[in-house]
């Protein structure tokens, strides 16, 4: 956190000053570790084993916050008899289908539920990254559940959890992660001792956690601990994601993502969502509790915002205009399609995949095989000059005179040359004022896309083709101003917020939205940002003149709430759990929820409220159900549906690992998304043969001095000089083993690429003892490329492409490699080197690691023998 989010880290220092104890878990000792009270070096890719150990520690010692757990989580809920655990099936859950490597989630369901309420099978959910829809709400599940609040029923979630994590002992943590037991106990003790009525503990992760083949389950494990300890919905608690781009949260809320529409509405699927009704019902799930009962309203308001007057009840609000997904249309599928010649045109908008995405060579070869490419950026980035300067020029794989891709480089306006909102990592929208005009031809994306749309619509004005109706009927009449005809960002924000069609009055809350076409709203979760016609995101009442919650600085979705699910900061009766942790509570005199924050609950629904037996939607949420966007109103320790790789997290080895999974016969995530494509070669891992060809673990991350793929830092002199060269950090032990010298050169080899770097031998990197072996790890920054003031090989070139099944994010935080002294070869010699490694690892014919390895009982640690 000190490394990549230094200004956020001031609050950790503030907490430290008040006596908080800080633990830092990381494969390498970073600037964060330097200030932490305890640093735990960990083998990359084993966090679930460590956190699973903490879950077991909590349950074994009954250190959970029992009152919170019983009332607010699904610990008491009973699961069907059909459920079978990883304990029973060598690391698989019940319902695994070998044919398509997915789970039928039916056997995971709650007792008494006839089936889980999803209209999409697991394979479709994986292909469409359906897990992302759950960023604002839980997966669909019936609200009525059978419960045993004594937590004794053998099939209640509490007992299932206990059994599932039983083998995550401190010894096992040590064997898997390489973390000595004393260190583990120190962490587990501190975490549990600092949670409860009077105290809360916080879990902070950076989004490297998402870049694993089990990334979603990493975060699930953290959430389980926080729920067990009562650290969710309370001040000083929570699971905090440190996201790495100024508005990456905003670009998920108002998604430039293939599978989502604004507000986490799914992009329609051709088979599952042929009509508006089916689409809406698949989201709302009749009978389900919570605010998603109003999905029709949110959907209709979006369609009205898109197609305005053309969208009417008679034509299902132009639902038919929406394009349909048939499967995976994600960025990595796109790149493989580019290589295969299926894609014609590609826009890059402030993004540099030649350096920033996994498997850089695939990215560059893909771009070299397009009809046209539009790059919009501040600087001439690698993704714009691949035809000139890519490493593949040297190897002859790309030659300018044979590369047909037509490239348009359009300069972009910087953040001070346009106005608009960023949504930062805590869902806070902040409006930026425009300071100066952009230079020369530089323009905002708002300008580019508004005018591109305008030109396209002019071209099609006389078209009679049905396919062009969606463009011609589009509500695309934004006011423009200034010398460049810049569209009004404020007008767009007003449309995002929503308004009453008849009067034009901006909506104050999404509860004012109607499903009859009388209101418009482009992103329901953002409704309120323009309440009263005021740009609430532009509010800047100084922090020093407000409470610590600072509700009048910017605007947070939803409804300006700063802590989600904050009803949980009060006990079931509505009183604060303790004076120290008072945040939101029930004011019995006024009969309303009150507190320091906007209560994340219906304002006047008393704690004693109990829904009628058949109540659904918001009415189905009881007065003591804080998790109002979950189908059963509870925090999920166990996910009966919606998480494709299991109802509970399980440690699987990274797809590329030098060790056999010590916990189960099942080696890697059996449901991971695999691309079998000639360019996507993977290093072998146990139980496959030849994994020793790539004996070392490598991981990559950021440096304070640089930003992502370097497009905004290697181009900036005062940053470039602070970290001027690509380097690799190695331990003294590995340096001795491989003959590397400090400040000398080394190169790393995988079955995709060889990358060179200067060597930093440092005590900050340590070998680890894993399952009786010494495992060496190396670390690299991923900021370097071939353009800018400072250049170097790109670490992301080393990775292959394997994705998490829930959200289709690639595993690019851990892989295996060889490390050799000296510079890498050039030209054909470089190709030959990589091919030779592939040959030695038996991968010249493409063999992908088996999805299921439960029949291989060769694990030295097989507890199940």
């Amino acid at each position, binding site marked *: 956190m*000190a490394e990549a989010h*230094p*200004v956020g*880290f*001031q609050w950790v*220092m503030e907490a430290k000053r008040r006596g908080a104890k800080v633990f830092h878990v990381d494969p390498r*000792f970073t*600037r*964060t*570790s*330097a*200030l*932490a*009270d*305890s*640093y735990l*070096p960990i083998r990359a890719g084993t966090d679930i084993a460590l956190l699973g150990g903490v879950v077991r520690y909590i349950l074994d010692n009954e250190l959970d916050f029992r009152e919170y757990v019983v009332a607010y989580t699904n610990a008491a809920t009973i699961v069907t008899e059909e459920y079978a655990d990883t304990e029973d099936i060598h690391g698989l859950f019940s319902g695994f289908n070998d044919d398509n490597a997915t789970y039928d989630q039916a056997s995971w369901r709650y007792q008494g539920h006839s089936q889980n309420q999803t209209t999409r099978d697991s394979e479709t959910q994986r292909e469409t990254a359906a897990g992302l829809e759950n960023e604002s709400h839980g997966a669909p599940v019936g609200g009525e559940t059978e419960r045993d609040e004594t937590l004794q029923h053998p099939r209640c979630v509490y007992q299932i959890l206990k059994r599932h994590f039983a083998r995550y002992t401190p010894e096992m943590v040590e064997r898997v992660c*390489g973390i*000595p037991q*004393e*260190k583990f106990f*120190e962490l587990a003790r501190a975490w549990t001792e600092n949670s409860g009525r009077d105290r809360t503990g916080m879990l902070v992760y950076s989004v490297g956690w998402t870049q694993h083949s089990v990334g979603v389950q990493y975060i699930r494990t953290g959430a389980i601990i926080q729920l067990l300890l009562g650290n969710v919905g309370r001040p000083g608690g929570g699971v905090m994601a440190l996201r790495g781009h100024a508005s990456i949260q905003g670009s998920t809320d108002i998604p430039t993502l293939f599978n989502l529409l604004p507000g986490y509405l799914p992009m329609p699927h051709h088979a599952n969502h042929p009509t508006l009704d089916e689409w809406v019902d698949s989201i709302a799930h009749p009978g389900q509790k919570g605010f998603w009962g109003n999905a029709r309203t949110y959907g209709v308001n979006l369609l009205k915002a898109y197609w305005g007057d053309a969208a009417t009840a008679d034509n299902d609000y132009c639902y038919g205009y929406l394009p349909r997904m048939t499967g995976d249309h994600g960025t990595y599928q796109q790149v493989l399609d580019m290589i295969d010649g299926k894609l014609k045109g590609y826009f890059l908008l402030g993004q540099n995949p030649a350096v920033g995405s996994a498997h850089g060579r695939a990215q560059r070869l893909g771009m070299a095989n397009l009809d046209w490419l539009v790059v919009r950026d501040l600087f001439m980035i690698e993704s714009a000059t691949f035809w000139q300067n890519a490493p593949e020029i040297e190897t002859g794989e790309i030659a300018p005179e044979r590369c047909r891709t037509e490239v348009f480089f359009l300069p972009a306006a910087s953040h001070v040359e346009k106005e608009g909102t960023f949504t930062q990592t805590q869902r806070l929208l902040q409006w930026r004022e425009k300071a100066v005009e952009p230079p020369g031809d530089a323009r905002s994306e708002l300008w580019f896309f508004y005018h591109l749309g305008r030109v396209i619509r002019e071209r099609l004005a006389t078209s009679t083709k049905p396919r062009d109706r969606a463009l011609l009927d589009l509500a695309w009449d934004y006011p423009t101003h200034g010398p460049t005809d810049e569209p009004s960002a404020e007008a767009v924000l007003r449309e995002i917020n929503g308004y009453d069609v008849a009067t034009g009055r901006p909506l104050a809350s999404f509860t004012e939205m109607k499903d009859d076409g009388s209101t418009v709203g482009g992103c329901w979760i953002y409704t309120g940002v323009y309440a009263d016609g005021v740009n609430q995101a532009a509010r800047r009442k100084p922090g020093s003149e407000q409470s610590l919650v600072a509700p009048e600085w910017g605007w947070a979705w939803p409804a300006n709430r700063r802590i989600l699910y904050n009803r949980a900061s009060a006990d079931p009766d509505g009183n604060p759990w303790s004076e120290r942790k008072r945040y939101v509570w029930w004011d019995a005199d006024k009969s309303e929820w009150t507190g320091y924050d906007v209560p994340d609950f219906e304002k006047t629904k008393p704690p004693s409220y109990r829904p009628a037996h058949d109540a659904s939607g918001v009415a189905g949420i009881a007065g003591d159900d804080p998790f109002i966007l979950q189908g059963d109103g509870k925090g999920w320790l166990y996910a009966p549906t919606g998480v494709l790789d299991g109802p509970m997290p399980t440690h699987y080895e990274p797809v590329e690992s030098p060790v056999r999974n010590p916990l189960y016969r099942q080696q890697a995530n059996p449901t991971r998304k695999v691309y079998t494509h000639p360019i996507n070669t993977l290093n072998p891992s146990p139980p496959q043969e030849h994994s020793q060809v790539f004996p070392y673990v490598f991981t990559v991350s950021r*440096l*304070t*001095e640089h930003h992502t793929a370097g497009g905004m830092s290697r181009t900036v*002199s*005062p*940053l*470039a*000089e*602070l*970290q*001027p*060269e690509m*380097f690799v950090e190695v*331990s*003294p*032990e*590995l*340096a*001795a*083993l491989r*003959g*590397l*010298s*400090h*400040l000398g050169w080394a190169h790393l080899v995988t079955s995709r690429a060889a990358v060179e770097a*200067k060597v*930093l*031998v*440092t*005590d*900050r990197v*340590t*070998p*680890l*003892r894993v399952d009786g072996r*010494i495992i060496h790890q190396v670390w690299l920054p991923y900021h370097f490329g071939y353009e800018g*003031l*400072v250049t170097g090989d790109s670490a992301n070139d080393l990775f292959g492409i394997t994705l998490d099944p829930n959200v289709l994010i690639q595993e690019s935080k851990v892989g295996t490699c060889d490390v050799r002294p000296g510079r890498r070869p050039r030209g054909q010699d470089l190709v030959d080197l990589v091919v030779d490694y592939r040959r030695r690892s038996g991968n010249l014919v493409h063999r992908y690691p088996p999805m299921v390895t439960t029949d291989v009982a060769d694990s030295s640690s097989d507890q199940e023998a």
Partner: protein
Amino acid sequence: MPHANALYGPLDPAPDAGYENPPPRMGFFTDTSVCIGCKACEVACKEWNGVPESGLDLLGMSYDNTGALTANSWRHVAFVEQPRSAGWATPAFAGDPDGPAISPVTAAAGARTSTDTGTDPGLDTGSPAVAARMSGGPEFLGMPGAQPPGRGSGAEGRTDFRWLMMSDVCKHCTHAACLDVCPTGSLFRTEFGTVVVQEDICNGCGYCISACPYGVIDQRKDDGRAWKCTLCYDRLGVGMTPACAQACPTESIQYGELDELRERAAARVAKLHERGVPEARLYGHDPNDGVGGDGAFFLLLDEPEVYGLPPDPIVTTRDLPAMWRRAGLAAMTMAVAAAVAFLGRRP
């Protein structure tokens, strides 16, 4: 009349420099115990003061690629890797299968590659011996890189580790030798008690450079003039905080009235001692030290040399009066001798 302590000893420098009713003396207290080594100070300084690039070299001194305070780096963050206990933290590598520490060797290897900072004399961070001290390990004796790192003597595996970071800056001494030797009046004392080079006066003679006991002030190669931290004199004038302190995320760099900062620093040291960090100490805070106390002083977690600071800096003009007296005496003796000789020739 000049103050009795005008060149040495405790002194409030602004009144001594002719300011009537000056504002309180302002300065920096840099608390290295909360520094996260982010280098925001280095960048914020460059952005505000328009300081040019100082080289694109990987120095191998841990994460320090700036190397030293120079004409083109008015803030410099030092990184010191040490196989020593951090005091407050659990030993970082306890229980891990690792060998002896390498930090003395890597620090020395890094030091040998560091580029000429242009600072001469001053403390030479480029010396392997100093680098070995910085690493806090055993005194480094051999040639760096003579054997592959890690093939050491087979000593105990490393368990303790700490990573010290410190943002260094011009000390704005009470007795600033750079100022005292400046023949053009380019270097002057401001009403805030700080020491500033006036770029419209400096003629690049370079006297100040050899005078600085810390090796801070430096000549810019392309324009020949001397440059260093101004403590953002232009910002102070309008009541603003210097750019580095304004940016510092963790309040490691604190700006304020020197008297108040000294109190705050003493309290912080006491607190750290209480929390099991006995090695916490102040540096440059004492008005009785060799430079009359620094306007920019530090809380360190190790000996000053470890951070590349001189342990006992003394203003190089301390002996100026005595020297003048001796020089005067010598001159007079010469004159008398000459006169005698001259007179003596008379028959």
